[in-house]
């Protein structure tokens, strides 16, 4: 199998902090691969190594078939990279930014217009506006256009949706879906767990390590304990009461429900209900649900 990205036991430390610790994975050609984890998980360091901006301390990696250390020049000519901060020239207009990055890669906007068309239509009305005056969502779209303008084989997007509102995030993922259809391999990192479902495969990262890697459903199916969703009239009290209960494995709030797991495995519903009613909870809702990616992440974090 020919991979777009191959990583074997790659590591990187800064002083004493191990930013990335023996990480290995492969990304297939044309795949939309997500790295999911909080700040400090090592996502940015990993991306910087793969885009040849940092030298790994150990291990090896190949992007588009090129060694990230030896062939760094070839990689620099072929990959697309969008760093965490939207790296645009604030004092240049939308069009000037795009033109500049096109020429840096020895191409023109026209030559690859087809590729960015769907995204650029949003920006077209603001062509002459300075990048610094665009809204967050627009900056994000422009940065993506700039990273795409030379038709890269592999695209690295480092936290493109951080700090962006849910609607703009949705739009952004729709765009990535279209790009993927065009055959571009995309590696994207995000702190938002709910974005896992938009990726083909995902790697959950925490403290420089990959907690789990694979298809979303496979990761979720590994979650063994039954998860219950609960609610009552007083949610805050519900958390406190469940935490105090003797067989509690985990209690986390999830929006308007709590997710609860029990140490004993099955058939705990009646028992828990009894406890809660005795504590004075009213309007109790109690149901077993399928765990989500966030349940998995938290359980992996605690392992």
């Amino acid at each position, binding site marked *: 199998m020919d991979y777009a990205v191959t990583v074997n036991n790659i590591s990187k430390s800064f002083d004493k902090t191990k930013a990335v610790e023996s990480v290995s994975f492969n990304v297939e050609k044309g795949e939309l691969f997500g790295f999911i*984890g*909080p*700040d*400090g*998980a090592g996502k940015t360091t990993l991306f910087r190594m793969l885009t040849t901006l940092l030298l790994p301390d150990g291990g090896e990696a190949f992007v588009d078939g090129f060694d990230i250390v030896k062939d760094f020049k070839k990689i620099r000519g072929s990959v697309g990279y969008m760093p965490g901060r939207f790296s645009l020239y604030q004092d240049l207009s939308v069009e000037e930014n795009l033109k500049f990055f096109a020429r840096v890669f020895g191409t023109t906007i026209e030559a690859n217009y087809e590729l960015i068309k769907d995204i650029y239509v949003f920006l077209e009305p603001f062509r002459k506006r300075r990048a610094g005056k665009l*809204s*967050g*969502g627009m900056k994000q779209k422009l940065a993506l256009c700039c990273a795409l303008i030379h038709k890269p084989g592999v695209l690295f997007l480092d936290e493109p949706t*951080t*700090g*962006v*509102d*849910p*609607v*703009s*995030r*949705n*739009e952004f993922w729709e765009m990535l879906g279209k790009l993927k259809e065009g055959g571009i391999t995309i590696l994207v990192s995000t*702190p*938002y*767990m709910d974005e896992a479902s938009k990726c083909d495969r995902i790697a959950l990262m*925490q403290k420089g390590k990959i907690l789990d890697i694979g298809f979303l459903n496979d990761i979720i199916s590994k979650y063994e304990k039954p998860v219950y969703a609960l609610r009552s009239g007083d*949610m*805050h009290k519900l*958390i406190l009461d469940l935490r105090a209960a003797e067989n509690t494995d985990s209690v*986390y*709030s*999830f*929006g*308007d429900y709590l997710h609860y797991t029990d140490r004993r495995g099955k058939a705990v519903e009646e028992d828990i209900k009894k406890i809660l009613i005795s504590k004075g909870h009213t309007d109790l809702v109690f149901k077993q649900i399928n765990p989500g990616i*966030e349940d998995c*992440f*938290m359980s992996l*974090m*605690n392992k």
Partner: protein
Amino acid sequence: MGENHIISVKDLTKKFGSFTAVDKISFNVLPGEIFGFLGANGAGKTTAMRMLCGLSIPTSGKATVAGFDVYRQTESIKKNIGYMSQKFSLYEDLTVKENIEFYGGVYGLSRERRKEKTEFLIDLLKIEEARNKLIKSLPLGWKQKLAFSIAIIHEPKIVFLDEPTGGVDPITRRQFWDMIYEAADRNVTVFVTTHYMDEAEYCSKVSMMVDGRIAALDKPEKLKEQFGVGTMHEVFVKLARPAA
């Protein structure tokens, strides 16, 4: 309009030249409420929040925060609120202890009171081993929790939180909300913005800003009912989509 509103806003407007960033917004917040202030990027949240914190003078409209007028009594407002954002929080090159003592000093706490508070917070957050460590060496989750504790070190009536949980891991994110609840239980009013829609569900009341106006304002369950959807995420999408 009851007298007991801790924040009271009527037709508040802010214009920058010909651009209206905040367009006649009105709402009231009760003491001890967790008020979720949501909206798309560029909808005017930050501008509105700045006015309420006394950092920016409105173009027109009325607003009082903790009983003080946002035009004339900005200094009194600043004394009675706490503020924390994802971007601005603590001094990276000072230690935990130094940060607590510095902010205690900023809000005029006496020397003994600062010492007492420092011990209390270090104990509360279980960060004894980090007492003399520089902030920049701490994990983000610790920093955010500490930043929140410091934002309420002077026991303000209201605390403004601007995307406090951005980029934080899911467990810490929930611990952070536990802290918010505890503050609310002590009758501190919490005014919070977030991009995590599950967090919108934790609020006692949620307002949605779209293009400088408040497009919806109610309890989360009422909003879901009103729009006939199951999650706050869907409410957000329904409201913000036309604006995007």
